[in-house]
């Protein structure tokens, strides 16, 4: 840091001031340009919001890829017929950086500037909650994936969740586990110390306690890699099973690897996500053998699931596949079906259709409908079949499928 004022600088002061003015003027002029995205006759603007940078990028980039392909295919096939008009889709992607403030700004752009009629996105609790005031005030439906209970509620009139959360998964998988291994008395639920992790671990607690299983909750800072201290603490309580709930692939894998290194012999039961092809290389295939999870193998699933997985593999690296695109792909399918069914892109009509319990036809899950009134107070939670799989020979094997 150097000097501030000299006579010389003072003389230039006027120029500086002038420059400031010009700069602001330029900004203002830039701003006053007409919005470039007034929807043409026969096109409808849709927004893709995803974490394209930052820690959520693996999900966001995959989601954006699939949705862009999906919309392109729809346009190539002639567009969507709504009422007696045929619309082409025009999509815009925005980066929420996995942050609330960025998501609100992104939503403002998609809605105020680009006039998007629907938003597909995003992952994470904070971004979804932060964009709610803008999306709800402007009556824009949001098809989101957030584990926060709050993301779906009566005041968030146009928020729909197209992913199931640990609130739906945990009771099913733990009931099954308790039936199969009645000796499980104590469980360690380990989650990230953020909104998602807190909700997940709490859901596990709610699911396990009625079954007579004690739950110890442990939270860690997102991005943490050294779990020896945490696991030393956890293992001192002698848990019979462990639920590494966190969605972050690397962290969950390291928890399982390091727990085995520290002599943990019990089962891993994941009420969120565990896939040996993705977790295995980091966690060690031997370490996760015999684990239970609600993830299932799309490559060997129903014809729709296989088709979806094949679409990914035809276009992108199979190693980069994750579940996030399936959620938003389904969301897009539901919205498109809804606007065709009601013959209007009006958000209230779409909402009424969804709340009426209409059975939507989706590629991945087959016939599905929205529910959740008893818990969230509003039927905005998509209910999809729960599948329990076991890791056998480095593969997911389906062992139980709910209705």
């Amino acid at each position, binding site marked *: 840091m150097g000097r501030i004022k000299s006579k010389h600088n003072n003389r230039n002061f006027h120029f500086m001031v002038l420059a400031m003015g010009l700069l602001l003027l330029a900004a203002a002029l830039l701003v006053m340009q007409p919005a470039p995205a007034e929807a043409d006759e026969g096109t409808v603007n849709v927004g893709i919001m995803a974490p394209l940078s930052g820690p959520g990028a693996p999900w966001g980039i995959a989601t954006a890829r699939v949705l862009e392909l999906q919309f392109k295919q729809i346009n190539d096939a002639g567009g969507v017929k709504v009422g007696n008009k045929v619309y082409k889709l025009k999509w815009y992607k925005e980066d929420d950086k996995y942050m609330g403030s960025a998501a609100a700004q992104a939503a403002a752009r998609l809605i105020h500037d680009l006039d998007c009629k629907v938003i597909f996105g995003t992952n994470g609790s904070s971004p979804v909650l932060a964009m709610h005031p803008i999306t709800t005030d402007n009556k824009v439906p949001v098809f989101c994936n957030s584990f926060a209970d709050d993301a779906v509620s009566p005041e968030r009139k146009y928020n729909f969740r197209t992913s199931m959360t640990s609130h739906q998964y945990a009771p099913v998988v733990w009931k099954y586990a308790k039936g199969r291994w009645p000796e499980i008395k104590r469980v360690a639920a380990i989650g990230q110390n953020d909104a998602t992790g807190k909700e997940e671990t709490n859901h596990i607690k709610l699911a396990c306690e009625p079954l007579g299983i004690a739950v110890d909750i442990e939270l860690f800072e997102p991005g943490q890699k*050294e779990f020896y201290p945490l696991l030393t603490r956890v293992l001192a309580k002698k848990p019979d099973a462990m639920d590494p709930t966190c969605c972050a692939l690397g962290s969950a894998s*390291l928890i399982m690897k390091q727990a085995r290194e520290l002599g943990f012999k019990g089962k891993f039961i994941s009420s969120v996500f565990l896939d040996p092809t993705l977790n295995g290389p980091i966690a060690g295939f031997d370490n996760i053998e015999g684990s239970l999870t609600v993830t299932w193998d799309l490559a060997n699933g129903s014809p729709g699931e296989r088709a979806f997985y094949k679409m990914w593999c035809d276009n992108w690296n199979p190693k980069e596949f994750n579940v996030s695109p399936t959620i938003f792909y389904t969301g897009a399918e539901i919205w498109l079906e809804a606007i065709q069914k009601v013959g209007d892109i009006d958000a209230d009509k779409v909402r009424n259709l969804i709340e009426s319990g209409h059975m939507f036809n989706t590629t991945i899950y087959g016939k599905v409908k929205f529910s959740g009134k008893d818990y969230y107070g509003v039927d905005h939670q998509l209910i999809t079949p729960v599948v329990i799989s076991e890791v056998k020979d480095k593969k997911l094997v389906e062992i139980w499928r709910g209705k």
Partner: protein
Amino acid sequence: MTLQMFVQSLINSILSGGVLILIAMGLTIILGIMKVVNFAHGEFYMLGGFGIWWFFAEHGLNFVLALILSVTLVGILGVAIERGLFKPFRENAFPSLIISCGILLVFRAATQLSFGLVDHAVPTPEAFKGMIQVSGAFLSKERLIVICITLALIIGLYVFIKFTKAGLAMRAVSDNPAAASLQGMSVDRISSLAFFIGSVLAATAGCLTGPIFYVSPTMGAEPGLMAFVVIVLGGIGSITGTVIAGLIIGFIEGFGAIPFGTNYATVMVYVVLLITLIFKPMGLLGHAEK
């Protein structure tokens, strides 16, 4: 606390401290000698990790060969950055800080775009597999080896700085660059050497921890931040201080986690840092600028 837990926590503390020390050591040299505030230090750690993944896991090179290759490349990159970007801003904290933030953003986003959609696993070399048991506590061989290498590097670096001519020149430049250059030392060359050593140490840490953890574009964020905490706690430019501070933080994380949980251990690290700075504003072993 049982004996087994105590021993386990002891091992955990030394492990977390060791890796931190390795990364922080490079940073203290860069900051101590060149007065360049390098926020991108964690990114060299990340690049080292990606190097070992690329050469060893993807292309099947021998682990040691891959380590040497990756570390050298990152070192050369470090020197190139020093020459091209940091050179005019030695002794000038603001521009170097902003430039390093820029480098951080670019590196992180570039790796994310090129390889970043999955967390990559680096397999453990066969020779390092397996566990050792010490009075009921567990220690994997790969971690033991990391500790040994860290120890060797710390001692080597200490000897280098204290007893070799180049090390003496480094200390001279660190104390007074103008006087050092009057004595015929090339400040440019010493600075490049310092940056090379600094980035090599960070990259080595990335390579060694690759198999233990995993490799991802954001892996440098947390260690890069903690490295600053370590060197400021220990006193900038002091190797002994860095080692002590690294161990302190390792012990807080190792032992603090047992009664309170890891999230509170992180709080304690920052509290300890603040309290130390209030009573010793130059860190534990730092000395005032002349």
